[in-house]
Structure formats: structure tokens, C-alpha cells
């Protein structure tokens, strides 16, 4: 293999699976993804040019929103198609190797670990659940209103009292929402095979002004997906005035892949 291309890793699947031909898809560099197989395992890879994907070039591209979005979506598209129709371990964006041989070595060295990881996620998909404190539908703050009754001689004091009451109430509402988020997560985690929580996203990231209080991910068997969404509907209703709950998915099991990591150079 020459060094005119690096090898980008999308996913690892069982070679026995009846999977779609990844060559119909377009990868992160517009390349046609392909399969590398080794002893029952298949890596879905693409050849990408070092001029765009060596460490320096990649760092620069990552600062270009248009480039990053296109590449992230391309990576996901390849992974998603595989995960929908077969069992595939999705890899994180920017998992790169110098050439195909390194990937083949990887498959060989960690064959058992990959097979165990494939078994863990077999027949399961990931669901995302986000919860927000619902400020739009929060009941009006009676305390603040009554405190806010103008006291003739001291408008400044009344204003400060009103501000403090509003702040206290907002704090209580957030505490309440976080508590409810914890309850929802525990119920969903009991139902799911595995569960994890992602860091909460800031309002800046989500474009939602309401504070996020839950960003959970749940690994659920395909046959139990309906039960999961039914349970979520119940929980959504139970916590409706205080919390707004959103469902995303099904996703490839991005959040539930634990693979062997090797040391930096080897």
C-alpha cells in the first residue's frame, strides 16, 4: 500500500453478515468505502488523501464548519446504513490508519474483543432522550406576583424583592426538573439493556433557550423498541408541565461501543 492514501475506519462488522455494499455510498472524502476482511471480521474503510487528512490538515479542516459538517454527516451516513441492516460497531469520527495493512493487523490482534463487542450490540439500537426544563409552560409565579405589588414609597426595594423571588423560583424549578430527569433516566435505564449519559448541551449548542437537564442514551433490542417508546410516552406525560422530553433515534450504537485501545504507536 502506498502512502498516497490513509485508511479511514467507519465501522467493524461480522464478515458473515449479509450487509449492503458500502461502495454505493460516498465517504468523508467523497471516496467509495470498501471492505477489508480478516478471519470472520470486516472493516468498512475508505481511502482518504493525506493532503486533507494528515494531522495538520485535519486540524485546520475542523475549524471550517462547512467541511466538518459535511464530513461528519458522511461518516454517519456510512455507519448508519450498515447499522440499519447488519450488526456493525460504529467508530468515532477521525479514526485513521496509515494504510490497510494496519487495519488488518488490528482486526487480527483484537479479533476476540471485536467479536465480543459485536455480540453485545447485536440486534440492538441506541435511542437518545433529551429533557429540558419547560419554561414556556411553567405555571405563573404567584409568589413573585404578590411580592411585586407596588409598595408606594419604595419602588427600588419592591423591584429587588421581585427579582429575588423570581430567581429563587427559577432555581427551585431547575432543581425539580433535574430530579425528574433523574427519575426518567433510571426508569429508562431499567428497561434498556445498557444506558449512559452524555454531557448536557448548552443553550448555545442546542438553540433551545430552556436549560437541558437530561441527555441520555439507551441501548434497546430492536424487538423492544415499541415498549421503550411507550414507556417514554408515559414518562413524558407524567412529567409534562415541568419537563419537555424529546426522543431521537434509532441510532447506530455509537455510545455503547467499547473496543480495545492500543498504545499510541502500536
Amino acid at each position: 500500500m502506498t502512502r498516497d492514501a490513509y485508511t479511514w475506519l467507519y465501522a467493524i462488522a461480522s464478515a458473515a453478515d449479509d450487509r449492503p455494499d458500502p461502495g454505493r455510498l460516498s465517504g468523508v472524502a467523497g471516496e467509495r468505502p470498501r471492505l477489508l476482511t480478516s478471519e470472520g471480521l470486516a472493516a468498512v474503510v475508505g481511502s482518504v488523501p493525506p493532503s486533507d487528512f494528515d494531522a495538520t490538515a485535519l486540524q485546520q479542516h475542523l475549524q471550517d464548519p462547512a467541511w466538518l459538517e459535511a464530513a461528519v454527516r458522511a461518516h454517519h451516513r456510512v455507519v448508519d446504513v450498515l447499522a440499519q441492516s447488519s450488526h456493525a460497531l460504529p467508530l468515532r469520527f477521525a479514526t485513521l490508519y496509515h494504510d490497510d495493512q494496519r487495519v488488518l493487523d488490528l482486526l487480527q490482534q483484537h479479533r476476540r474483543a471485536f467479536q465480543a463487542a459485536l455480540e453485545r450490540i447485536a440486534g440492538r439500537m441506541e435511542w437518545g432522550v433529551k429533557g429540558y426544563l419547560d419554561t414556556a409552560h411553567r405555571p405563573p409565579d404567584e409568589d413573585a406576583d404578590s411580592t411585586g405589588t407596588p409598595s408606594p414609597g419604595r419602588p427600588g426595594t419592591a423591584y429587588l424583592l421581585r427579582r429575588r423571588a423570581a430567581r429563587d423560583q427559577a432555581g427551585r424549578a431547575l432543581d425539580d426538573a433535574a430530579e425528574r430527569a433523574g427519575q426518567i433516566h433510571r426508569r429508562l435505564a431499567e428497561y434498556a439493556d445498557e444506558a449512559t449519559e452524555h454531557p448536557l448541551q448548552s443553550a448555545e449548542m442546542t438553540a433551545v433557550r430552556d436549560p437541558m437537564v437530561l441527555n441520555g442514551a439507551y441501548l434497546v433490542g430492536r424487538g423492544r423498541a415499541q415498549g421503550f417508546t411507550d414507556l417514554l410516552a408515559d414518562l413524558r406525560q407524567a412529567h409534562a408541565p415541568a419537563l419537555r422530553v424529546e426522543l431521537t433515534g434509532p441510532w447506530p450504537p455509537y455510545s455503547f461501543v467499547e473496543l480495545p485501545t492500543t498504545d499510541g504507536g502500536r
Partner: protein
Amino acid sequence: MAQPSPTSSAALRQRDVALVDLLDRVLAGGVVIAGEITLSIADVDLVRISLRALIASVRSIAGDQDGDPP
């Protein structure tokens, strides 16, 4: 980015995926298998900065459709 998408169901699915949710998984979730040139990019401040710029620019393109429900 501006290239027209074919009207296949896969393309429709793709457009529906919110970028912020995708980044949660593709960048922050999953795994990196260390190779000589694997970047652990989710840990780099640079990426957080570029993600903010990314989200902001995507939002301005997409308009206000993610705003408050009616």
C-alpha cells in the same frame, strides 16, 4: 454542503438528524482506536471552538425552525 440530495429515504433520514445530536455521538461518543495518526479530537479545545462556530452557522442556514414550539 450545497449539493442537492437525492430524494431517497436514506437522504431524508439523513437531513432529519440534528447536527448537535450527531456530534454528541460521532465526536464525543464511540471510540478511538489509537493508531499512529488517530486524533483524539473531542478532547481538544480547538474542536469545541469550531463546534460552536459550526452550530451557529448551521443554525443561521436552517433558520429558526428549532425555536420555541407554537
